[in-house]
């Protein structure tokens, strides 16, 4: 039987459609529909009759719905979406931790990453397991605990050495710690790293760790004992004390690099010419066989495709059992090395966390994807176990992950804040009551909960709530829990109390739910009209949440007669404006965000008058200057005890929440998606989420 071309094409089209349908139905967790193709009966030469039989489902895939597990802790909620339908199959081959990133790391050179242009978050992820420091944060609770140090340092002592007077402290380093190439770590490595930072005038994170305004030098008293010398006076001869941010959370956190590998390279680098050329030469070096300290060594980098790190067999911390107790005690012990230590009390009572430090894998693979979409697709397809999402998971991706049976989402508090800033050099923003009135009318709860559907969490203090130890919850909260009418009334009262006047005061509806009449003709205390102001905020393409907030802020301020126009623009435009020479004159208000550190010394960075662009070229773009605040902030920097620093941080937060150079707006929950059927983390409740723990490369266990 010969069929005509149309008939043949029809059959072909039918077959293709059937194939597409069959393909589309594969792996669906729903009843299977089997479409059978039946013989085509040809009546005429060109007519084809098709019959499709849809059979009753013969098989039903059952998804075991499990109850949603909510770990209700103060900051964290772990949501279990759906448990896998089957027991996970044992991992084939050597255990490899497969992670997804969607930008290329820039360099493997640690000097470049920590102090040069390679300082991207993607570089950070892949170099996480390459270094160690004297001290670090404990997992989950962020206690300050020894790392390469054998114990806490001696107290700072004022000591006269030669002609000079110094604050000094001694640190005993752990013995038996080996680099990945088998060399033993000693005090010389630490001294070498510090001296290199000094000699090559390295900036960025190196300069933050090795603060030359305070640190004079570090000496190795013997192979494993360090002595640190801090200056007792600043450049002007004023007395100074190296506080926590300089010593314990500064120099103590500095990554240590291997002298026996880097010393000859640094010698060569120093021959490169001027200091800039020396830095360039250092950053240009491509490490080959560089010894590491953090549990992993570099194995292979296929640009654009993947980077692999192998386990370091000499990792000093492997096998260490870390236990944290409800009473605040922290203990660690390692049978292999014989190391054992307990801090912050007695190791007894309820254990809140216990795990064994790895690596528990043979290697870790960072697969590089073109974008977040591709990475999430690879995660849902089972190609990788975890995806780094430094900018968070968008709702669409979140829904996709939630609908994938063997994926789980860990929800954590984020250590960051998005804010509205004022240029307090210019009227009316230089008047505290004006700023308070603005803070009062901004209904953060409404935007966060109703408009953004809980994608944002309102904040009132500059230290986010998730940073429990340092967060002061008892700060003034302008407008909190007020109705719209009350907000407007209080804002108007605040303005009037500062001498502002209206031609027409705003009026609230009878039920107090909305504005009945906008305020008009607002005049400043000197009688001049309030000028039109611009609120710079990122556009929706960059951050839909901030742009939404900006639009609402514009509306609410206009309601009470403050003429503000939200200008939604590119991130670079805003940053350019902030760093411009004319920032003092051109800037009105802006909306940006900060990713923050645990120790809140950033409060000084953001608001101390010495960091105004016109003075020190710092981050105090709004030009906030308050002597009382400055003294308090410097007090935080020079504080040498944790409790004292906490007290000062609390005072600073309260001060800022009252004076409001920034109006803290919101933070976002940190969402991490991973595959619990293949990998297991010792804990998932942690400030900043799994992402800020760099995917827990040393702790993850492959099932």
């Amino acid at each position: 039987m010969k069929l005509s071309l149309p008939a043949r094409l029809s059959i072909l089209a039918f077959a293709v459609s059937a194939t597409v349908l069959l393909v589309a139905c594969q792996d669906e967790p729903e009843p299977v529909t089997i479409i059978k193709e039946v013989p085509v009966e040809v009546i005429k030469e060109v007519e084809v009759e098709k019959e499709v039989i849809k059979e009753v489902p013969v098989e039903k895939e059952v998804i075991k719905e499990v109850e949603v597990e909510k770990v209700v802790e103060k900051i964290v909620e772990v949501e279990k979406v759906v448990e896998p339908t089957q027991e996970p199959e044992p991992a084939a081959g050597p255990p490899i931790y497969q992670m997804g990133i969607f930008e290329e790391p820039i360099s493997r050179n640690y000097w470049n990453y920590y102090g040069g242009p390679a300082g991207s978050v993607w570089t950070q992820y892949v170099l996480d397991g390459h270094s160690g420091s004297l001290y670090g944060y404990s997992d989950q609770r962020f206690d300050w605990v020894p790392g390469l140090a054998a114990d806490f340092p001696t107290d700072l002592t004022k000591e006269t050495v030669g002609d000079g007077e110094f604050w000094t402290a001694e640190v005993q380093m752990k013995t038996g710690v080996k680099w990945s190439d088998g060399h033993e770590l000693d005090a010389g490595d630490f001294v070498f790293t510090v001296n290199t930072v000094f000699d090559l005038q390295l900036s960025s994170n190196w300069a933050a760790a090795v603060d030359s305004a305070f640190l004079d030098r570090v000496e190795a008293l013997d192979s494993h004992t360090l002595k640190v010398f801090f200056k007792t006076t600043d450049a002007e001869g004023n007395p100074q004390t190296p506080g926590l941010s300089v010593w314990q959370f500064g120099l103590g956190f500095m990554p240590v690099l291997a002298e026996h590998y880097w010393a000859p390279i640094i010698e060569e680098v120093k021959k490169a010419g001027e200091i800039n050329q020396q830095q360039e030469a250092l950053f240009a070096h491509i490490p080959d066989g560089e010894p590491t300290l953090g549990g992993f060594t570099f194995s292979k980098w296929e640009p654009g495709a993947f980077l692999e790190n192998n386990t370091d067999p000499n990792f000093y911390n492997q096998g260490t059992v870390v236990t944290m107790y409800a009473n605040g005690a922290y203990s660690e012990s390692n049978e292999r090395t014989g190391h054992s230590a307990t801090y912050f009390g007695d190791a007894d009572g309820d254990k809140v966390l216990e795990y064994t430090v790895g690596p528990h894998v043979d290697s870790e693979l960072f697969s590089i994807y073109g974008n977040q979409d591709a990475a999430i697709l690879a995660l849902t397809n089972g190609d990788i176990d975890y995806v780094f999402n430094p900018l968070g998971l968008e709702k669409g991706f979140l829904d996709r992950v939630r609908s994938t049976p063997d994926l789980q989402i860990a929800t954590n508090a984020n250590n960051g804040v998005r804010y509205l800033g004022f240029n307090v050099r210019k009227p009316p923003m230089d008047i505290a009551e004006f700023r308070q009135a603005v803070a009062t009318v901004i209904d953060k709860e409404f935007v966060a909960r109703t408009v953004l559907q809980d994608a944002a969490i309102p904040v009132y203090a500059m230290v986010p709530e998730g940073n429990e130890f340092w967060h002061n919850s008892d700060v003034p909260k302008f407008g909190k829990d007020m109705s719209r009418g009350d907000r407007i009334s209080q804002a108007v009262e605040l303005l009037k109390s500062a001498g502002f006047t209206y031609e027409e005061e705003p009026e609230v509806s009878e039920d107090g739910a909305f504005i009945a009449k906008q305020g008009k003709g607002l005049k400043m205390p000197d009688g001049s009209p309030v000028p039109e102001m611009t609120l710079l905020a990122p556009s929706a393409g960059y951050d839909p949440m901030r742009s939404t907030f900006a639009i609402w802020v514009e509306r609410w301020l206009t309601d009470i007669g403050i003429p503000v126009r939200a200008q939604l623009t590119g991130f670079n435009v805003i940053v350019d404006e902030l760093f411009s020479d004319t920032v003092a004159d051109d800037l009105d208000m802006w909306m940006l965000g900060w990713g923050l550190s645990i120790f809140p010394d950033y409060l000084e960075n953001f608001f101390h008058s010495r960091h105004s662009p016109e003075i020190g070229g710092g981050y105090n773009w709004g030009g906030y200057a308050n002597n009382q605040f400055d003294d308090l902030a410097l007090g935080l920097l020079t504080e040498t005890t944790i409790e004292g620093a906490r007290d000062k941080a609390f005072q600073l937060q309260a001060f800022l929440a009252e004076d409001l150079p920034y109006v803290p707006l919101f933070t976002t929950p940190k969402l991490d998606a991973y595959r619990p059927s293949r990998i297991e983390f010792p804990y998932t409740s942690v400030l900043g989420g799994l992402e800020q723990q760099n995917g827990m490369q040393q702790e993850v266990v492959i099932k």
Partner: protein
Amino acid sequence: MAKYLLKRSAQILATLFVFLSLVFFIVNAQPGDVSNFYALNPDVPPETRERLQDLFGVNEPLWKQYIVHIRNTFTGNFGISFSHYPRSVADVIMERLPRTVVLFMTATALSFYLGFALGKVVAWRRGGWFEYTSTVSGVTLYTVFTPWFGLMMIWLFAFKAGWLPIGKFLDPVLWRDAPVDANSVFTRMILTAFVVSIVVFGVFVVTAQRRMGRARLMRIVSIALASLVVVAVWIASGTAVFAWDILRHMVLPVVTLTLISFAGTMLLTRNSMLETMREDFVMAARAKGLPERDVRDKHVARNALLPVVTSFIFSLAFAVDGGVITESIFSWPGMGQTLVSATLTEDLPLAVGAFVFVGVFVLIAHLVADILYAYLDPRIRY
């Protein structure tokens, strides 16, 4: 001809200069600079930003940067990439180029072959059911929203069916212990394709004057033999498995690109064929009693080839810039993705370098097309 070539070369140089200037000023018109990405870390001292600006030279006056840019470009030095610091721009481009060339040359060649073959048939069966079906489906695919179509292809054939990999150009687990790097495999693939093309071209030239049936047999046997030799060489080199892995990853993007773009060639061929079919020599060929297939393929299609070849040459030139969308969707780290990320991260040297590289390629392609015109159509004389 020599005079014409000289004149065209001068024009191309002038165009290149204008192009370089435009690229530089447009790219630099973006607000901010690369240091913005390091500026917003409260742990980083503020002076770090200035140091980075010094390091990258972005705080120099624009006219100084422009002069350096022009000088560097004409001396082949595109500078250092900010986002791949301290690698040179040329190094980054040479890393990304083979990947794009392999993917997009393959897709371009396939889509032109498919488009040309279909275009011939469509023109020959004008007004028929086949023409309507091909035209409608071709134009539908030609105008489809590319990101959506790409994602649907991934969803259907990679995610749901599991037949093909989801994005990327290789399987990291397989390549962990690979004795070669991906770029050397890509380079070998390009060389292989070049050699095979030469062989195929040679076979076609040698068999052109022979009888149809015999010629076809010789072509099939020769190409099969050449393919066997190629496969044997790859297997013997121990890298066949890696080339196969790349080929597997290429299937989806190539099919997607081919489906999206074949209609352009098809319609161009159809129109050109329809014009040629009205020529007297076609009527003469028919009058001689030549079979319809011979009239179509040897008389009409060959004469209709000219605009298609021109279009093909330009497409090959543009293939080096990759497809920004395709490369992003399929996680194919070629020139397109490099351009996007360089622009987003304000890596001006890399963005400018990539644009210039593509621009030079396109200008050369114009020159080649002009020369080919004269070669393919004896009526054209410069």
